[in-house]
């Protein structure tokens, strides 16, 4: 790691002030990606603004939606009685991220802002029609993720919380990369009154995406059988040492089937 400044403000407004005073500052949430990157010297920000003191870690049932503070640790989401009651699939997703140490540090907001193409959370955000609340606006999930490691966030914008719509039924199934245990393919299926959403992570070259053909098939008939005739194209899917794009296409369908089974 190169030496860098570290500040830990007590509110988002202080955090925004702090980031403005830096040339290439970085917000530090759980640090589960950023810290290893810094240790490898693959980034050299002139300062880190730790937002863990900004009181962004509440979880509340707000009727139509479940609002989770951006700094909620994965372990908090996994163990939250509210989350387990209202959207148990979300608690299950959080419980399957990384290992215990990662879950004790990693945060919802950090994961979503980073938008790693293999991260689990972006699929929940997209499938659960979530709204991403930042310090100055609210973004629909559909508009939030813009590409691999890319989001609509500005450099000096902080996610404060995310509101998830409550589904009738939801499930997340992950096929982990055997080595890293990141999602090689992760499928989040959420059933709402007005239809089904299927969000796929781990597979798209442009990051998380919705699979509309499966969504409409499942909207008319919420069962694995309705996916039978669907052909998942491998175009635009990630190909690496562990999985070809064809194999990922197969896994997308298979994990979706398992998610609705």
């Amino acid at each position: 790691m190169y030496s860098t400044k570290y500040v830990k403000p007590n509110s988002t407004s202080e955090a925004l002030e702090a980031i403005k005073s830096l040339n290439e500052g970085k917000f530090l949430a759980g640090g589960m990606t950023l810290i290893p990157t810094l240790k490898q010297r693959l980034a050299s920000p002139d300062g880190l603004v730790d937002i863990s003191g900004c009181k962004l870690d509440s979880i509340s049932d707000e009727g139509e939606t479940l609002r989770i503070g951006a700094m909620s640790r994965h372990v908090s989401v996994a163990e939250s009685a509210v989350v387990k009651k209202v959207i148990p699939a979300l608690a299950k997703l959080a419980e399957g991220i990384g290992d215990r140490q990662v879950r004790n540090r990693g945060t919802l907001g950090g994961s979503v802002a980073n938008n790693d193409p293999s991260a689990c959370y972006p699929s929940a955000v997209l499938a659960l029609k979530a709204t991403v609340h930042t310090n100055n606006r609210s973004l629909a999930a559909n508009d939030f993720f813009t590409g691999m490691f890319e989001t609509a966030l500005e450099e000096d914008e902080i996610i404060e919380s995310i509101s998830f719509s409550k589904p009738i039924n939801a499930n997340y199934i992950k096929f982990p990369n055997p080595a890293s245990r990141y999602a090689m393919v992760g499928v989040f299926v959420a059933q709402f009154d007005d239809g089904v959403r299927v969000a796929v992570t781990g597979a798209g070259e442009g990051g998380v995406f919705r699979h509309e053909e499966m969504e409409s098939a499942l909207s008319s008939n919420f069962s694995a059988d309705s996916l039978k005739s669907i052909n998942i194209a491998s175009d635009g899917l990630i190909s690496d040492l562990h999985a070809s794009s064809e194999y990922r296409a197969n896994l997308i369908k298979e994990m979706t089937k398992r998610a609705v089974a």
Partner: protein
Amino acid sequence: MEIKNSYELPLSKERVWAALNDEEFLKRSIPWCEKLERRSETELAAEVKLKIGPMSTRFTGNITLSDIDPPNGYTITGSGKGGIAGAASGSAKVKLLENKDASSTTLSYEVSAQVKGKIAQLGSRLIQSTAKKLSKNFFGSFVKQLEDMDKPQ
């Protein structure tokens, strides 16, 4: 690793070829290009600041043009050193094909990429996606510039 794509442009082949050899055009097309200076007919010095997720590295290196076959195409190769991150190079074979009525040209490219050092050791899962994304950005913005220029003001 094989990355191929093509675009159809409502322009003559000569026009596209001229743009392919215009360094201002290239500079605006290279994602995150901070510096581009012509060193010779076929060589340009470049500095690019590449951001992939949390990684942010400045690559310094060269862009060379080879297999030049005006106005049918060339090979454009960029290679740069990213200090501790390692090194990366990408090579695109660009071909221009005039369509039958001469009113449009198809630009096709085939990219091969190579990475060295830490980025290869730690980021292998991202190599192909990144190479695809960068080539798409490059050719996408090149084509867009051409199209924009061609629009009546």
